[in-house]
């Protein structure tokens, strides 16, 4: 069972990630392969995230900047896998996989006080993470706050924090893996952040902290098919509350699901502003399933016939 859980962790670790990651003093951490679920209706955005990372750091801070104060809740990673399966390309030979087991944990939080110019306005535990929601006015004060909490942000994050403060994104969701969490425990719960936003946005600039060359996959639920510059469309289709088993209220109406992907180097990472696509056409990728018998079958049959004929002549 332990080995199975470890395998699940490795496989899941290859799939998800988001935000920026600042390590503790005892190691390094690199984030890769971001997947996020995003819904935007009537000026309210829901952003579901799950973390993945590689490195030897046993402790790190996971930071997500937001344009307004968020409500924090959990989301089952099963929903990520269900979406992955639901939107998978048409393989002419078929296929699909899944991992992780449902293990929902309730979210929570309480309001705190001022701390070094960084105001802690909520904290709690969601799934594998302890989190804080901070209201920040000065970038350096957030960096100092992280140092005070025992992390080693260095000089890299401050300009990134400043980028968000410049556009009046003053709320930062900061999470770290619970100390009590053992390595082999299932990381089956992600974070769901709900906040007010005029348009559908995805905070990617923050991922300049601690990222390598990364593929970003966004599942977007909205009234129309959505797009952002340079993104490859993987899926577009109508969905509703009845479509998924494990969405836990993430999809509360008939809407259109768009799956988009784009690869980034860290210096290319800018916040993603999603816009309405030119049309609402359904789309699913069609990829090769390696139909060797369809292509070579006639040749094999012809070869067999010729061989049989040749033997008959002998």
């Amino acid at each position, binding site marked *: 069972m332990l080995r199975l859980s470890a395998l699940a962790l490795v496989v899941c670790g290859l799939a998800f990630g988001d935000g920026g990651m600042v390590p503790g003093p005892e190691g390094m951490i690199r984030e890769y392969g971001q997947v996020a679920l995003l819904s935007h209706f009537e000026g309210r955005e829901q952003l579901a995230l799950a973390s993945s990372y590689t490195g030897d750091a046993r402790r790190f801070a996971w930071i997500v900047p937001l344009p307004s104060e968020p409500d924090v809740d959990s989301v089952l990673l099963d929903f990520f896998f269900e979406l992955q399966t639901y939107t998978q390309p048409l393989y002419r030979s078929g296929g699909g996989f899944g991992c992780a087991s449902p293990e929902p944990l309730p979210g929570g939080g309480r309001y705190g006080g001022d701390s070094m110019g960084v105001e802690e306005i909520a904290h709690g535990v969601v799934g594998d993470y302890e989190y804080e929601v901070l209201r920040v006015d000065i970038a350096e004060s957030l960096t100092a706050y992280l140092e005070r909490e025992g992390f080693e942000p260095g000089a890299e994050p401050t300009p990134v924090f400043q980028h968000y403060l410049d556009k009046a994104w003053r709320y930062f969701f900061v999470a770290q893996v619970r100390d009590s969490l053992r390595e082999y425990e299932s990381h089956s719960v992600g974070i769901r952040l709900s906040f007010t936003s005029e348009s559908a946005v995805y905070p990617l600039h923050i991922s300049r902290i601690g990222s390598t060359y990364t593929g970003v996959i966004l599942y977007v639920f909205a009234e129309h098919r959505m797009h952002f510059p340079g993104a490859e*469309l993987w899926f577009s289709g109508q969905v509703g509350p009845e479509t998924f088993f494990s969405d836990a209220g993430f999809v509360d109406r008939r809407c259109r699901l768009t799956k988009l992907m*784009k690869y980034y180097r860290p210096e290319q990472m800018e916040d993603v502003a999603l816009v309405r696509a*030119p*049309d609402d*056409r359904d789309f699913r*990728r069609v*990829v090769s399933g390696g139909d060797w018998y369809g*292509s070579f079958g*006639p040749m094999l049959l012809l070869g067999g016939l010729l061989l049989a004929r040749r033997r008959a002549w002998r």
Partner: protein
Amino acid sequence: MKRAALGLALAGVALAAGPHFHLKAVQPLLDNLYGVMPRAGLGIRFPQSANFAFRTELAGSYGTGRGEFASCRAWSVLVRAGEEANASPLLDAHVGLGIMYAYARERRPFADTNGAITDRWGSGSAIALYGEAGVMIVRGRGYRLDFEAGLDIGAVQTDLPLESQYQPADYSWVSLTGLNAGFVFRLGEPSAREETQDPRRPCSGCLH
């Protein structure tokens, strides 16, 4: 008068060549993109003897994608040639085996990185095999209607690129592999009465 005679002569030759028309439904076996496709064709059975016929025909089929692939289209033109054996006089049945040359075109939607989805056509050609068997349903004066079912095996690779993140670029293909069934209407066939009078072949389907 001369024209009429020439016309009659040509009609006689045409009927002697054993013309036939078919209308079938094709169910692709290895392609989950397309549903049942209609197929229509015409051909000749020439030369033919009492038990064998060389059958040549031109056929075309057309298919549309299923569900969210509704904008997909595929059509193919087949030139089929093969030997047909009237193996069972008791049932008035036949079996055939042959080879075909297929030209196929396919339309699929492609998405660009500007957010647009456009339909693109691609085409290709290939050689494939077929086998079929049929049985007579009804015979009249100069015509015959058979029910025929068969299996085609092959695939036409088109010049439409297939996306894949796991392997090098590949090209799309239209699968010809599938079951087909339908009706074949033959002209220039001897009636049951004429057939019983034909010393070359035994009577089939008639009462004694």
